[in-house]
């Protein structure tokens, strides 16, 4: 296990996992847009965001955000139903999409980082809301387009505090 995950690794893993979910479970087209990094949380949001946490020797978070129209479209494709408005089934579908995408990214990285855990997804729906993940300094932001709708996947992964402090404690000894 190399124990290193680069931005490119994240983009590749998230893209592959998203493409697989869209082709197998949603049967929707997916176009990857330009990924970028962000050092701040997204500004006030409208629509739906599904968050999944990663824990273990590395911790992180993955989130899928989109408009309520796009959320209804994804849910409709997943459940083969029509959803004119966001309801519990739409929120549940968004949670499951996030669970599958971030879960498969987690599995991908376990080969490098060792066993990781996945939290139960949380979904937020509303207008002009803010979310904040404690301790996260760098997000990989990966926008995608499906038809005329867009969704944004944000992902961050860093050594857990315990691991980080252990590394920092060891560092002087390594240098010496």
């Amino acid at each position, binding site marked *: 296990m190399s124990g290193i995950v680069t931005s490119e690794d994240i983009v590749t893993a998230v893209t592959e996992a998203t493409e*697989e*979910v869209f082709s*197998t*479970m949603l049967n929707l087209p997916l176009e990857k847009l330009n990924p970028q990094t962000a050092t701040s949380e997204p500004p006030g949001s409208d629509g739906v965001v599904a968050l999944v946490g990663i824990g273990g020797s590395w911790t992180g978070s993955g989130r899928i955000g989109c408009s309520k129209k796009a959320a209804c479209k994804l*849910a409709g494709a*997943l*459940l*083969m139903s029509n959803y004119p408005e966001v309801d*519990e*089934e739409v929120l*549940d*579908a968004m*949670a*499951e999409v996030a*669970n*599958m995408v971030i*879960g*498969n990214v987690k*599995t991908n990285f*376990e080969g490098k980082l060792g*066993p990781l855990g*996945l939290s*139960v997804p949380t979904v937020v729906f509303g207008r002009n809301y803010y979310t904040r993940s404690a301790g996260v300094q760098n997000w990989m932001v990966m926008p995608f387009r499906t038809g005329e709708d867009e969704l944004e996947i944000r992902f961050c992964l860093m050594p857990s505090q315990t691991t980080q402090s252990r590394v920092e404690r060891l560092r002087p000894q390594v240098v010496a």
Partner: protein
Amino acid sequence: MALDVMIVDDSAAIRKILHRVLVQAEVPLGQVHEACDGKDALEKLKDAKVGLILSDINMPNMDGIELLNRLKADDNFKSVPIVMVTTEGSQAKVLQALELGAAGYVRKPFTAEQIQEKLAGII
């Protein structure tokens, strides 16, 4: 002969999809029971006899591995095939499930054909 099935997943969306896939696969379905976690499944299985269980692994309250462990230790259920349908892709978890007696494993995301193929070898 109709097959009673239990689907165990904390996602109502996945329960709905799996139910639909079973219908598409032309499984001769009897009753389809649903449970949202292992604990809920054990409770509902007190009153239900099933011939197949599809279960997630990562669930709150009681996960799929613990559910599998308990059912395989129960004379009433140890011969019931249990297929794990899960996002959990780590080799350790999959091997653990198979060692505990899971009849198979399907990774999410899945296609209807993958579920059909897996079930064809089991039921």
